[in-house]
C-alpha cells in the first residue's frame, strides 16, 4: 500500500545544529544569549504545562545526531514501508512563541536551511516543510518565497498556537505567498507558550493531559476564521492542512457553522458557499491522534459526515508518545488506500504518484 506519513518529526539532539546556518549576529545571540534550558535548548517562550513523562517514545534513544535519522529509518520508515515521510520538524515550530520576531525569523530560516541541507538528502522518502514564524507575516512570506521553489518542499508549516485566528487579514501575506509558490499552508499542534498565551480557551489548564485533549480548540478557531474571512475565496486553490488537532470535532462544528451562516451570512457577503463546502474543498485533516471510542463504529459514522474518505490524511506523529502506527489505524477498511496515501497526492502536488496510480489516472 502507498503510504504518505504527513507528520514525521525530524528530531535533533541539540539545537546547536542550527549554529552553522545562523547569520553571525543571531549565532552570537544564540550562543551567548539567554536560553530556556541548558546549552542545546531551542529558544522559545515556554508553555505553562510540563509534560509529566517527556514527549518522545521511550524506545527511541539517539546518542548522536546521526541516530535521529538511523533510528527513524529502522523503527519507522523501513518497518512500516512508508513511501513518503513529510518532515514536520519539532522545536522550530516554537519560534512562534518568541516576542522578538526578528530572532524567530532567523531561527526558522536557519532550521529550514539545516533541514534542506542535512535531512532531505538522507532519504529519497523525505519531503520538507518550510517552518515559518507567523508573528511576522511579511517575514514569513519572504521565507516562503525564498524556498518555495525547492522540489522537495511540499508545504508551509506554522504552530497552531498563534496570536490571532489565522483567517485574520494580518496573516494574508502568508497565504498570498503560499498561493504564489503553490504550497499548502499547514498548522501543527504546538506554540502554546510565550506570546501565544491564549492557545487554550478560557485560560490555561492545569495538567498536560487535559491540555493535550483540548488540542482541537485552537484548530476549531483557525478553521472557522479561515473560512469566514474568505481566505478560500481569495485563494481558491489553497489547501489548509490541520495536523495533530484531532478530527471527530469537525462534523459538529460544520453543522453549527452552516446553520449560523444561513441566518447571518450578511456579515460575510464575500462567501459564496456554505462553510462546510469550503471545508470540504480546501481543508484537510491529519488523522493522528485519532479518537478512540469504545465502539469504533461511532467514530466511523462521525467521520462519514466530514467525507473522511477524501478529507483525512494519515499521520503517525513519529516519535511522540501519542504515536499512531500505520498498521493500527482504526479507519474503515474501504478508506485505507485513500487515507493512507492517495489523498495526500491531491494536496501535496510535488509528491510523485506511485506507478500503479499514475497508470489509472
Amino acid at each position, binding site marked *: 500500500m502507498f503510504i504518505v506519513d504527513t507528520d514525521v518529526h525530524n528530531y535533533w539532539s541539540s539545537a546547536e545544529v542550527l549554529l552553522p546556518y545562523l547569520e553571525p549576529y543571531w549565532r552570537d545571540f544564540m550562543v551567548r544569549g539567554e536560553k530556556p534550558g541548558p546549552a542545546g535548548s531551542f529558544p522559545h517562550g515556554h508553555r505553562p504545562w510540563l509534560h509529566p513523562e517527556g514527549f518522545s*517514545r*521511550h*524506545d527511541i534513544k539517539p546518542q548522536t545526531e546521526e541516530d535521529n535519522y538511523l533510528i527513524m529509518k529502522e523503527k519507522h520508515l523501513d518497518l512500516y514501508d512508508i513511501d513518503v515521510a513529510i518532515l514536520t520538524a519539532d522545536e522550530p515550530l516554537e519560534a512562534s512563541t518568541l516576542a522578538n520576531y526578528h530572532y524567530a525569523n532567523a531561527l526558522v530560516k536557519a532550521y529550514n536551511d539545516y533541514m534542506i541541507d542535512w535531512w532531505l538528502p538522507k532519504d529519497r522518502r523525505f519531503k520538507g516543510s518550510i517552518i515559518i514564524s507567523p508573528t511576522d507575516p511579511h517575514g514569513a512570506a519572504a521565507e516562503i518565497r525564498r524556498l518555495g521553489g525547492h522540489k522537495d518542499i511540499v508545504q508551509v508549516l506554522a504552530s497552531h498556537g498563534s496570536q490571532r485566528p489565522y483567517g485574520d487579514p494580518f496573516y494574508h501575506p502568508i497565504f498570498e505567498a503560499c498561493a504564489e509558490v503553490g504550497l499548502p499552508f499547514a498548522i501543527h499542534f504546538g506554540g502554546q507558550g510565550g506570546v501565544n498565551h491564549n492557545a487554550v480557551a478560557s485560560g490555561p489548564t492545569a495538567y498536560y493531559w487535559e491540555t493535550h485533549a483540548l488540542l482541537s480548540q485552537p484548530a476549531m478557531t483557525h478553521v472557522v476564521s479561515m473560512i469566514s474571512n474568505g481566505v478560500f475565496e481569495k485563494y481558491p486553490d489553497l489547501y489548509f492542512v490541520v495536523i495533530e488537532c484531532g478530527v471527530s470535532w469537525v462534523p459538529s462544528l460544520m453543522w453549527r457553522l452552516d446553520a449560523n451562516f444561513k441566518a447571518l451570512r450578511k456579515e460575510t457577503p464575500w462567501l459564496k458557499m456554505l462553510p462546510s463546502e469550503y471545508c470540504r474543498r480546501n481543508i484537510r485533516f491529519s488523522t493522528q491522534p485519532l479518537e478512540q471510542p469504545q465502539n469504533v463504529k461511532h467514530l466511523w459514522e462521525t467521520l462519514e459526515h466530514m467525507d473522511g474518505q477524501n478529507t483525512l490524511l494519515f499521520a503517525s506523529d513519529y516519535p511522540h*508518545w501519542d*504515536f*499512531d*502506527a500505520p*498498521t*493500527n489505524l482504526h479507519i474503515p477498511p474501504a478508506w485505507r488506500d485513500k487515507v493512507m496515501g492517495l489523498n495526500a497526492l491531491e494536496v501535496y502536488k510535488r509528491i510523485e504518484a506511485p506507478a500503479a496510480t499514475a497508470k489509472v489516472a
Partner: protein
Amino acid sequence: MEAALAPSRTYACKVAEVATGQPKIVTFGRISVGIFQLHDGYAALLNICPHRAGQLCEGPVCGTTRQTDKTEFVYERAGELVRCAWHGWEFEIRSGKCLVDDRLKARTFPVHRDGEDLYVELGR
C-alpha cells in the same frame, strides 16, 4: 519433576545482564521478550503491548501514583510496573495486568534461575 519440565525452558540470558529497573530484551526467533528483575525474583513479558502493539518492555520501569480521595500525590509500587515505551500505559510486570484497562493483559512467561543463567518458559 524438574527434569520433566526442563525441555520447555529456553535459555534467555545471564543473571548479570538483568538489573533492577533495567530489563534485558531477548529475542527468541520472532518473539521479543523483556526479562525483568523484581525485588524477589524475575519475570518476563512479551515485548508487545496489548494496547497498540508498542515495544512494551523498552519503556521505563517505574512506580505509580496511588488513587486517592483527596488532593495528595503518593508515589508507590516503585519498580513493580513498566510503562509502555510508546503510549505510556502502565502494566504490572509480575502479572501483566494493565492498570488503566481491565480488559488488557500483557503476556507473561515464567522465569527460572539456574545458577547464573535465566530461562523462560515460552509455552506453545
